[in-house]
């Protein structure tokens, strides 16, 4: 398992460097106390998933921040590219009817 130069191998800084033997980078997701979804909190290095969870516990839940941990190796995450911002998100801007406030409901109908 040779880890890439960095989790961001496409950055100018990371290009043209020899590959190094480093512990891979893991992204950490924590579920807080109140039944919310797991939320990305940061990242860390670990040799394997077991160690990643142990390290995540030590680094990201020292003050009761969570009740459940997910870790995923950073290189497995597929991400949208900043240049796709327009095509991806602009279509929803014109669709105001998707919001409940678009509709005027008379007061006498009551809460809805």
């Amino acid at each position, binding site marked *: 398992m040779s880890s890439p130069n960095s989790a*961001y191998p*496409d950055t100018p*800084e990371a*290009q043209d460097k020899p590959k*190094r033997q480093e*512990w891979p980078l893991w992204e950490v997701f924590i579920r807080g106390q109140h039944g919310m979804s797991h939320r990305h909190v*940061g990242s860390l290095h670990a*040799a394997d998933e077991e160690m990643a969870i142990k390290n995540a516990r030590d680094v990201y839940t020292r003050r009761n921040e969570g009740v459940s941990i997910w870790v995923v190796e950073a290189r497995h995450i597929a991400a949208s590219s*900043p240049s796709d911002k327009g095509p991806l998100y602009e279509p929803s801007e014109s669709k105001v009817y998707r919001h409940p406030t678009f509709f005027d409901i008379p007061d006498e109908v009551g809460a809805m």
Partner: protein
Amino acid sequence: MYAQMVKSEATQEDPEMLAAFQARIDAGEKIEPKDWMPAGYRKTLIRQIGQHAHSEIVGQLPEGNWITRAPTLERKAILLAKVQDEAGHGLYLYCAAETLGVTRDEMTEMLLDGRMKYSSIFNYPTLTWADMGAVGWLVDGAAIMNQVPLQRTSFGPYSRAMIRVCKEESFHQRQGYAVMMKMAQGTPAQKAMAQNALNRLWFPSLMMFGPSDADSTHSVQSMAWKIKMNTNDELRQKFVDQTVPQAEYLGLTVPDETLNWNAEKGGYDFAEPDWDEFFEVITGNGPCNTERLAARNKAWDDGKWVRDGLLAHAQKRKMRKVAAE
């Protein structure tokens, strides 16, 4: 500060892209790792965040020094938690820098061979238990001055790291001040020890902000990019104004005979630290530079077999899993 005298990199790029980039920053948008950014912005941030991270890690040494000799079990547990936090802060910051295309191990190697620096303050020794109080109160207090505004920095990962750090940093400063209160209200010998710690650490703490950068072009560029939020002098003034009343409450004397409240400017007038000493310390000639770097090198070298062994084990397990499937 934790990152001192960070030189900004000159940038030669398409003026239109630079203008668009600056407009995003001026509009308060966050720059994220995959966004286009000037090479100078990237390089300056790697240097600054890396130096900040190294400071957190090297900063564990002067405090780790007292863990086994803390006066009570409670104080020991608290100090241990604080030093563990510093490791976490270093880690948040390394991860933020890594999004710019440098790896943590690369940064560590640059620290170990002297290509990257850490804050001058950690090259001073911690001679007595009172120093644990003074470090938390003064050193963490000075760090907070810089880190609170950096929560609004333009680079997303750096900003998020700072938000996490600031949440924990307040615990550090308060525990330090609590140690100082206990000492200052203790026996005359304990109070003298607290005064002695303040005497030794006052000027090194003022040095943390770095020399005046009012005329520095680096500072102007970094401030335009919002990776530096205040001038060094502004932060130093703020620190003195906040800290002097806290020293008075303790019944301790700030070791500066020229210290004087200036009603006109609404702040204290105070003596500059010895900048020759500062430059000596950052070029490697402080009281503990050799010791600190030797300790980090030893930890890195002694840990090599563990890093390699765990990686080999992970590889073996992965192969076995593949074979089983």
